[in-house]
């Protein structure tokens, strides 16, 4: 593995971790598990429900990143990725980073997110009435879509980075690395719920650390945006102009 491949993979992991810092999927998993345990559902069934939900989010993330990479490869297969595409993605990352700082969480107590209240109520109601693993799976799929406004940034950046990997095999690795790192926070919460940790402790931790998560997610987006701008636009322009 050459250093350039390693750097690209590290950037893809960073994109995945930014994706993982967005909390809607974790909130819905907390609700889903809480309602299932509260209804005296057998613990194995609770695990099956939350596992199906986790699988749904992983599959949707995989589908989104694969489609985005395929689109990038299809559009830019001959010409390579143009500076304009990098500029758009850098603008998106910096804009979303600032938006994350400003309004990702609501000012109220708890972990209320930016979502329109009607959408939040719909997800809460769906989580409460989910009884079947297939329903939990589709809830996982729709939760990822509900947060598309924010995950569009890291997803777009990863979709431009993955085609830079040297071969199709490496590109598949890039897609898997993104999907796994994007599902990391959800996977950790699922393991905590499965190992018998109290949901209120998990929720309390999330509430106490929500400003840190908001700040770090937003800051990482802005940093990634500036880094890609310097690396892919300024550096490429300097090379084109013969300065370096």
């Amino acid at each position, binding site marked *: 593995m050459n250093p350039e491949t390693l750097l690209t993979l590290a950037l893809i992991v960073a994109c995945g971790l930014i994706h993982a810092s967005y909390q809607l999927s974790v909130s819905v998993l907390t609700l889903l598990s809480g*309602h299932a345990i509260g209804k005296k559902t057998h613990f194995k069934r609770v695990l099956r429900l939350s596992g199906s939900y986790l699988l749904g989010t992983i599959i949707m993330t995989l589908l989104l990143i694969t489609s985005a990479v395929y689109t990038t490869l299809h559009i830019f297969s001959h010409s390579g990725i143009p500076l304009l595409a990098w500029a758009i993605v850098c603008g998106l990352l910096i804009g979303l980073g600032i938006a994350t700082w400003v309004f990702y969480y609501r000012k109220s107590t708890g972990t209320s997110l930016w979502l329109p209240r009607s959408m939040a109520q719909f997800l809460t109601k769906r989580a409460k009435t989910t009884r079947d693993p297939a329903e939990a799976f589709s809830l996982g799929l729709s939760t990822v879509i509900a947060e598309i406004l924010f995950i569009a940034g890291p997803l777009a950046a990863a979709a431009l980075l993955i085609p830079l990997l040297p071969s199709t095999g490496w590109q598949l690795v890039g897609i898997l690395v993104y999907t796994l790192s994007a599902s990391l926070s959800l996977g950790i919460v699922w393991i905590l719920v499965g190992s*018998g940790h109290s949901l209120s402790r998990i929720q309390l931790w999330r509430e106490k650390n929500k400003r840190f998560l908001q700040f770090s997610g937003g800051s990482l987006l802005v940093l990634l945006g500036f880094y890609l701008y310097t690396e892919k636009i300024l550096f490429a322009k300097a090379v084109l102009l013969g300065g370096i």
Partner: protein
Amino acid sequence: MSLFGQRTVIDIVKAGGTRPSEEFNADKLHSSIVAACLAVRTPEGQAEAIARDVCTATMAWCSTKPEVTSSDLRRIASRTLQTHHPDAAYLYKHHKLIV
């Protein structure tokens, strides 16, 4: 037949004002407290006992009022639950503020 064996004539004004008021139902309050306790892994018997205490205290508070809002009910119930089981009270109080 209600768990608490009495018909209470207190109207509960629903949050937001879009849904009509409904009569106070102690069993509904009891079930939600039990669910909150079970969600934080409280044994079933203990959850039932806590829910009974919370319902009794909440009904005593409500008894002097002709109508209360659902937010009042949640606030009073979670205040009483706090003394019995802080973890369950936290979840009960915040469950609408998770998403």
